[in-house]
């Protein structure tokens, strides 16, 4: 596929001369039959780790054994009540083989035998207990992990009025279970990988077999395989390492904390990347319009969703252009404003010491600062500083004659407009772009605004996200796809999957599902009720 022609050179990694990255050599050691040696090896590895517990005991009072676990990751209660007693009882020694004994009498569902020190460490980190037994060249890992985690909550970043209210949490297994509960088909594939030399973070690539195209999957694999970092704490790390244009302001990947969004996108043939430790999942490929869609668009009535989408597109332009248009009109094209309005503006600007351009810049920067402060401030103080604070400051600034009243309106409207964009990442990109736009408007008026707009469009037209043109389906035009961009057509008309991602299996549902009581065999509407 020609989209992927710019596949990155793999040479980068080899060029680096055997980096001083810590080698995994000591852990590659195979466990020996001597338990003391094993314990010693592990103790040196876990030197100065107070949370690693070594508990020695005898199985059935005869065989030396040690159980290792990391405090806080393991269900100690189960260990105390179920595992240790059954190991310590007499019968243990009477069993024919150790393996059969463990299988028969340990009340733990998942048992793994491990051969190497490295595996031991991996099991310990993921919350298993490792059981070392004397004279055995292998250990047994009992997975009785349990750690504190957040319960399911409504995602705060993507609220809906109608729609499922559960969001992802920081635990990957919970997230996968949420997803699995929505897509019960075995075609939902989840491929795990581990990233981060130190963090050893689990990253899961999920897709639906038969819907996601192989080229896309392959591309995701290739890009992920290039990642070699020491730690990953958020999917944004992955995003930054796999996106197409690292310099762009625009997000080229959708991030969401809603399982329903991920599930719906998987059904359109996209690929999702989940990561342990963060509620945010990545979805690729993204197009600009997919960033302007909210999951609720599909849960509300279609006509209303269509209108709300248009409103969103309008306010997208407002959030990008309003301050620059204001500056351009006020300093270059005064004839455009109706006379009465212009006179009102002139009257309110009469005592303002700054040029309109400076005024706009000051106020926009103040607004951004207030927004940022609102996010960072402790919750108790945050509310006071937010919009209310802005309004109070604005009112005072107008009365003091520092800023004109129309400017405050423009800034407030711009700020609000940028929040109508459902994806925060896209909204903030446009908010940042309005600063260069204001500067352009201040130097070339509407011409400058247009040139700036063209530059942004050129950039967007050049962008691709995993082979999909960023502006599709607008450009390149796919009229068929506009049903989910210009409008949101009713569900019974969305019979085909999007062309760019769902090429493998185009048909989404049975045709002719438009409800039509008079045509169908609906008993009630035929007047057949007695």
């Amino acid at each position: 596929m020609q989209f992927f022609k710019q596949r990155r050179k793999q040479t980068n990694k080899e060029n680096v001369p055997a980096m001083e990255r810590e080698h995994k050599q000591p852990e590659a050691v195979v466990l020996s039959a001597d338990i003391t040696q094993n314990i010693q090896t592990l103790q040196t590895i876990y030197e100065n780790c107070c949370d690693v517990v070594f508990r020695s005991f005898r199985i059935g009072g005869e065989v030396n054994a040690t159980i290792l676990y990391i405090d806080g990751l393991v269900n100690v209660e189960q260990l105390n009540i179920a595992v240790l007693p059954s190991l310590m009882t007499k019968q243990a020694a009477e069993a024919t083989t150790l393996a059969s004994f463990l299988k028969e009498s340990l009340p733990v569902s998942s048992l793994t035998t491990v051969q190497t020190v490295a595996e031991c460490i991996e099991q310990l980190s993921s919350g298993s207990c490792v059981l070392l037994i004397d004279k055995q060249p292998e250990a047994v890992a009992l997975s009785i992990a349990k750690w504190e985690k957040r319960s399911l909550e409504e995602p705060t970043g993507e609220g809906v009025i109608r729609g499922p209210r559960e969001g992802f949490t920081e635990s990957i297994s919970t997230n996968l279970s949420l997803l699995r509960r929505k897509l019960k088909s075995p075609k939902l594939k989840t491929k795990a990988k581990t990233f981060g030399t130190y963090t050893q973070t689990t990253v899961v690539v999920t897709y639906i077999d038969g819907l996601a195209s192989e080229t896309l999957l392959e591309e995701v694999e290739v890009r992920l395989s290039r990642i070699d970092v020491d730690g990953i704490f958020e999917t944004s790390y992955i995003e930054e390492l796999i996106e197409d244009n690292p310099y762009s302001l625009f997000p080229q990947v959708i991030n969401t904390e809603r399982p329903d969004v991920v599930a719906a996108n998987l059904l359109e043939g996209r690929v999702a990347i989940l990561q342990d430790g963060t509620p945010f999942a990545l979805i690729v490929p993204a197009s600009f319009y997919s960033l302007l869609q909210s999951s609720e668009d599909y849960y509300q009535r279609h006509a209303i969703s269509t209108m709300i989408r248009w409103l969103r597109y309008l306010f997208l332009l407002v959030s990008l252009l309003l301050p620059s248009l204001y500056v351009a009109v006020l300093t270059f094209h005064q004839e455009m404003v109706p006379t009465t309005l212009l006179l009102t503006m002139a009257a309110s600007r009469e005592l303002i010491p700054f040029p309109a351009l400076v005024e706009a810049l000051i106020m926009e920067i103040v607004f951004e600062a207030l927004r940022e402060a609102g996010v960072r401030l402790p919750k108790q103080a945050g509310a006071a500083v937010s919009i209310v604070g802005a309004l109070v400051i604005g009112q005072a600034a107008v009365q003091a004659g520092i800023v004109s009243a129309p400017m405050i309106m423009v800034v407030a409207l711009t700020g609000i407009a940028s929040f109508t964009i459902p994806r925060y990442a896209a909204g903030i990109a446009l908010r940042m772009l309005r600063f260069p736009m204001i500067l352009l408007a201040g130097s070339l008026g509407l011409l400058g605004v247009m040139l700036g707009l063209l530059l942004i469009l050129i950039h967007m037209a050049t962008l691709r996200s995993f082979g999909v043109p960023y502006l599709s389906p607008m450009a390149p035009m796919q009229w068929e796809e506009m049903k989910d961009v210009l409008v949101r057509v009713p569900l019974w008309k969305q019979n085909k999957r999007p062309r760019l991602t769902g090429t493998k299996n185009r048909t989404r549902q049975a045709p002719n599902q438009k409800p039509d009581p008079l045509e169908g065999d609906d008993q009630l509407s035929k007047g057949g009720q007695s």
Partner: protein
Amino acid sequence: MKRAIICFVVSISCFLLSGCWDRTELNDLALVTGIGIDQKGKEIELTAQLVVPKKLGAGASMGGNNSGSSGGATIVRSGTGKTLADAIAHLQEKLPRRLFWGHVKVIVFGEKAAKAGIRAHMDFLSRNPQTRLRSNVLVSDKTAKSVLELLPPIEQSSAEVLRELSNSQILMNITLKDVLQMLSGETGAAALPMVTLLPIEKEKTPLETIAYIDRTAIFKGDRMIGSIGDKLTRGALWIRNEIEQANITVSLKGAEGKITSTIIRANTKLIPSYKNGRWKMTIDITSRDDVLLNATNLSLYNEKHIHQLEKALAQATIERVNATLKKVQKEMHADIFGFADVIHRKYPKQWNRIKNRWDDIFPEIEVKVKANVVVQRPGMNTTPQGIPEDEVKK
């Protein structure tokens, strides 16, 4: 990284370079709402009516403590020079702010200036990229300055007053574009609305009187040759098919009192004809009216009375049109009705032959006026109100 720095430096320097050039702050503009052009001896005097936002702001934002000084939001400044551009340059010298012509509503010519010719001024006004082709053009019976100086009690500026009056379509409504079209058209004549100053009332300052449109200035070529009053103007509007609002009052035979009707829709057709080397023009007027006032004792539910009324109305219209024709066609010889265009459209070949002699031919054209008035509704009353039932003539 290096490229980022270069891009940043370049964009910043571009921005700094362009700081001056065409950027003008609103605070540095003098907003002109009306232009007056007068002839002072050999020189042109240009009067600009400027809005002072400071005075507006006092009324608008500070809570109306001194908003009583109504109409004081405009001032008038003049400059003189050999040409209009010269005069503007002189005017600009006297002002701390840059003149801004983008909001010019009206252009007023003093009578003297109009008589001296307006072509050069028109050229300037349409050449300037700031002025609007939609500005209304008027002629003042005194100086243009005296009109713009007025401080109207209702509107913000006298320019606004004149524009509203023009747009109300009772008399002529002529924009800069229309003037340009008339001047460069085949007719060689133009008609512009004319402003009259009302005499000053007692106990009022001279600036508190009002100006209103009640005449029409007739131009031949680009010079004003005379003017006609409001009645004749109506006649002209009838012929030009521009009548929008008009009341016609007639009295009927055999009844005392008068009936006034108002025009709902009117249409005029000019039909030229050419026979034996003579040009004839038929003016065919059709109008639909409603009765507005009935001071007679006639019941308008009688068809006979309606016919009578219709005839009387038609007659009144014809008389009005004829009066206008007499004055404008026969005395002034100015084709403000667009006869030339009509003939040109209908008889393009013959037109090319008579084009150069049009000034001689126009006064000789025989004009026949036909009017057809249909009264549609009697208003809210059936029989006349306020008289006993038996006095009503059924």
